[in-house]
């Protein structure tokens, strides 16, 4: 019995918790902790042996076919049907694991081969490449003629405007992230005093360089504005956040945790008001890690006039 599938096998006998074991027996770490499901340390390790089952390299050998014992053996737990010989040829009509030949190590792929690219299933590809985010302070250095993902779905509309790349109104990169103390947007954790007290208010993290440039005092209120909305947050200036030197440009980043909202023991503006509704073509998740923004000193309510320059609907969004 186990509480969750990832733990099945972690308690092999009464009083033994393999995840707590701390005696490494070899260079692969067997004996130190445990890897679900069979304490196998290298996935697809059948690929460390030639098609005939002998190791590619004597020095780096991992698993190999033991002809005498008629099974796979080695330094790691074989990631392969232990008794399937290297010369196994699937009979016609074979299904599942039986349909994979003895020289096909990639057992989670239907054809048993390793793939340099994804032949099916993705709306972009097949090879990995680089595009800039939907909003970026620079042009794509890899494909100057193609800035962002050409098959990304554009959902621009009133209230969901996109900045251009680059955009003179929004010189900084904004990225959103989580803190340990809160769960997703904070709907559950903001109501628990022992978690809420640890991260009680929204803040944004800026570099000491950016703080000096704007003469922002540590802890002072600032307003962050994107093409969609504006939020207010305490400024936390820290040398953990550093400006990025991209080509000849110095690009400042602003980090914002997204755990606050309008109810709970602790409240604050929502970082998600800033992000763009855009759709990555495969999983259709919006971009939240690389957006363009600007920074205004002071609380949102004190920046109403300035915010009107950024969006037509800013009046309705100010406190």
């Amino acid at each position, binding site marked *: 019995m186990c509480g969750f599938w990832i733990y099945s096998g972690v308690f092999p006998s009464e009083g033994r918790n393999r995840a707590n074991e701390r005696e490494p027996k070899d260079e692969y770490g067997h004996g130190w902790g445990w890897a679900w499901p069979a304490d196998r340390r290298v996935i697809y390790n059948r690929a460390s042996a030639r098609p005939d089952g002998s190791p590619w390299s004597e020095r780096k050998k991992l698993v190999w076919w033991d002809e005498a014992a008629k099974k796979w053996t080695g330094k790691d737990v074989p990631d392969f049907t232990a008794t399937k010989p290297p010369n196994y040829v699937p009979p016609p009509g074979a299904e599942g694991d039986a349909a994979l030949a003895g020289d096909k190590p990639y057992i989670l792929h239907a054809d048993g081969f390793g793939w340099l690219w994804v032949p099916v299933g993705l709306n972009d590809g097949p090879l990995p490449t680089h595009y800039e985010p939907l909003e970026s302070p620079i042009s794509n250095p890899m494909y100057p003629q193609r800035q962002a993902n050409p098959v990304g779905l554009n959902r621009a509309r009133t209230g969901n405007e996109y900045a251009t790349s680059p955009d003179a109104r929004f010189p900084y990169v904004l990225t959103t992230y989580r803190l340990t103390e809160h769960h997703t947007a904070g709907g559950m954790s903001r109501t628990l005093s022992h978690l809420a007290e640890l991260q009680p*208010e929204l803040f944004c993290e800026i570099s000491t360089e950016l703080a000096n440039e704007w003469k922002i005092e540590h802890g002072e209120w600032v307003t962050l504005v994107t093409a969609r909305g504006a939020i207010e947050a305490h400024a936390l200036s820290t040398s953990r956040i550093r400006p990025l030197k991209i080509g000849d440009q110095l690009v400042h980043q602003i980090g914002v945790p997204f755990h606050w909202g309008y109810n709970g023991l602790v409240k604050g503006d929502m970082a998600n008001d800033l992000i763009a509704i855009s759709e990555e073509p495969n999983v259709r998740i919006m971009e939240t890690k690389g957006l363009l923004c600007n920074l205004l000193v002071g609380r949102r309510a004190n920046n109403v006039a300035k915010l009107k320059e950024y969006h037509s609907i800013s009046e309705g969004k100010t406190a």
Partner: protein
Amino acid sequence: MTKAAFLTDATICIGCKACEVACKEWNEVPDDGMIWSGFSYDNTQALGASTWRHVMFLEQPAVAGPQQVDMENPFRWIFLSDVCKHCGNAGCLEACPTGAIVRTNVGSVLVQSDVCNGCGYCVVSCPFGVVDKRHPDGRAFKCTFCYDRQSAGMTPACAKACPTQSIRFGELEELREAGVARVAELQHRGYADAQVYDPLEASVGGTHAMFVILGQPEAYNLPPAPEIPTICLKSAWMSALISALVLAAIVCAAFLF
């Protein structure tokens, strides 16, 4: 009689604050206020009547051990879970006039909240600033070393919850040796400023909470030589006696001349 202890290792703490939350959940400690501090990610700020474990976040312009990258702008972010030191000679215990503070059979120092009358003498007598009065309750509270859990053969809640084994709980002398061994290993790996905080020389007479730290203890709010107030008793009474004699001499002199 075994002596229980904590060994808390700053070099493997990840700053998750699970110890703080586990402590409060087990001991039913109320929240300590919803105040954003601006001190890195640390909004707890310090140990207090309603914070018995405190994970401090230190941002330092210093090299982190064998770090090789960006040596012109060295930076390290250190976390350390602070706790009551359960001193060998405890200032709070010596100051307590009601007997509310006692030495337990595991060597820890326990404030019995049903006896405490809230006088606050222990608060000023702690060389580490650990004991604190809870407002508006008025009584003093601090880490109990999970005496209830220990009595039932269990690990204190903070050490139990620690996901990286940064907080180790065990026998005092074993952990003292483990701390020295850990520092030797860290120094071997390039952490030249690693050291154990274990003030054996000072008048607290060794503590039941030791720490593995990088750099100087002052940065962690740990006094390099924590002294208990009673070591000043002799000089204080001597000063009082001399003052009294001088005053008496002056009064006598006023009659004579």
